């Protein structure tokens, strides 16, 4: 079974800037995949190559086994892209926009599916409104609708929730999750790390045009984040002083490698007769992982990527 999306040794320069170099990875069918990285890391360029909007200098990209250049019709039919920029055609209404987009894919009489899209994206009442009259969040949802008119098996969302308010963001993610459960492969780029953490099963991190991490969310979290104990006490045991990350008025943040270390810490506390006023465990989060990887702790040793 071909991968939903496969990048093979992609390189792309813009003038003297290497936007991407040697990018290879695959996203399996049915995955909810996150593509993270700071601004300028090459996320949008990579997505543009998958969508045929940008041509790679070397390497190739495939959607469900179809080469995006040679076999562009099949590749594009299999792919729905929600672009990052808030673009729209001011000549048309919401429904016209979706009907026209269906027609570009050769689909006529798409009314039932368009009605469902409008309903799911909470746009039914705006169906006949001109695109110009819509708020930014509504325009964003129309873009999501446009990416779905041809029921693509693979959906790419490039920073889809920028400018969408919290409530709508939740309903949007509800809809995307349902699409994923229905078997659509979802690839998401985002700056909101909590979003990626909540949604994505597997994650690739890009930095300066290279993949610097590629693994399941679970593995990334356990490998890079570690555990932090928030401890309120008079002091920490002598042997643990070097493990204190910071202190805020009698509250110590202590780094643990494993949960087993907690046992040791508590033993030491008892032995030195230190009373624990308060103790909580802080869960690892993706932001921490992201900062560690991007901070260069692991530069030269990309995680999960064969060297």
């Amino acid at each position, binding site marked *: 079974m071909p991968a939903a999306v496969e990048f093979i040794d992609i390189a792309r320069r813009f003038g003297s800037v290497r936007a991407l170099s040697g990018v290879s990875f695959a996203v399996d069918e049915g995955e909810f995949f996150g593509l993270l990285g700071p601004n300028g890391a090459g996320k949008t360029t990579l997505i*543009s190559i998958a969508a045929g*909007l940008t041509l790679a200098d070397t390497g190739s990209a495939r959607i469900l086994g179809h080469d995006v250049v040679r076999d562009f019709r099949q590749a*594009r*039919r299999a792919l729905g892209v929600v672009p990052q920029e808030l*673009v729209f055609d001011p000549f048309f209404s919401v429904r016209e926009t979706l009907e026209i987009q269906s027609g*570009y894919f050769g689909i006529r009489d798409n009314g039932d599916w368009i009605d469902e899209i409008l309903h799911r994206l909470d746009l039914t009442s705006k169906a006949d409104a001109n695109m110009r009259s819509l708020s930014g969040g509504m325009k964003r949802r129309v873009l999501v609708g446009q990416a779905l008119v*041809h029921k693509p098996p693979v959906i790419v969302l490039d920073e889809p929730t920028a400018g969408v308010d919290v409530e709508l963001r939740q309903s949007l993610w509800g809809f995307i999750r349902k699409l994923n459960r229905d078997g659509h492969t979802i690839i998401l780029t985002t700056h909101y790390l909590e979003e990626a953490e909540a949604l994505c099963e597997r994650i690739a991190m890009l930095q300066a045009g290279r993949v610097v991490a590629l693994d399941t969310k679970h593995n990334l979290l356990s490998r890079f984040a570690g555990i932090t104990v928030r401890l309120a006490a008079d002091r920490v045991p002598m042997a643990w002083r070097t493990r204190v990350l910071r202190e805020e008025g009698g509250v110590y943040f202590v780094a643990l490698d494993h949960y087993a270390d907690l046992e040791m810490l508590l033993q030491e506390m008892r032995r030195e007769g230190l009373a624990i006023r308060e103790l909580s465990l802080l869960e690892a989060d993706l932001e921490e992982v992201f900062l560690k990887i991007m901070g260069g702790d692991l530069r030269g040793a990309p995680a999960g990527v064969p060297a």
Partner: protein
Amino acid sequence: MIRVAGAGWPTLLYKELLRFWKVAFQTILAPVLSALLYLLIFSHVLESHVTVYGGEVRYTAFLIPGLVMMSVLQNAFANSSSSLIQSKITGNLIFILLPPLSPGDLYLAYVLGAMVRGLVVGLGVFVVTLFFVPSLLAMPHPLWALVFALLGSAILGTLGLLAGMWADKFDQLAVFQNFIIVPLTFLSGVFYSIHSLPPFWQAASRFNPFFYMIDGFRYGFFGHSDVAPSFSLALVALCCAMLSLLTITLLRRGWKLRH
């Protein structure tokens, strides 16, 4: 999951037509009015001073097919070029770059859309000017006129597509229009027969492809032309084929559309 899909270009053509139809006041009525003003002014000033085809044809009658063809050409150019540049600048070009539309599909839809706009405006100008010279309806060779109108609008629609691809800003498009399209149309014999020109300018006009479009179109109305209509037809058809080939090749490479 994916329905059996037909071709996407008819929808793009439909969108192109809807786009100018929704603003028909600017895209159809305004150019008809301009042509009418040209007719009123030029025929008033020149009717008694200019003789064409040895006096067989009144100047006003001579002028009308020129104005009709000029309107066809300019509006065909305006349609594809402004549609494409607007899409590029606002970014909504992405909506047609993401679907499985081939370079040929894009070419077909943009050029056919431009042709329809050009022909609709040309027809509008013709109908209005018929009030001045009703005898023009009795064309000796209407098919010749139609063929030249079709080819002329296709050529200018293609040029508009090229200009829209090339330009990144509206002022670059205006340069293309003001320094190439307008001089070539005005100097093509819309307002005069080239036989009235000094020999140098007569010779120069023969390097202007627009001259053959207008001369051939006029042949349909009067059975008279400055050069043989079959020669004009061959030249215009060749021009159309070459430009189309160039444009489809550039579209295939994604020139200035796909990075």
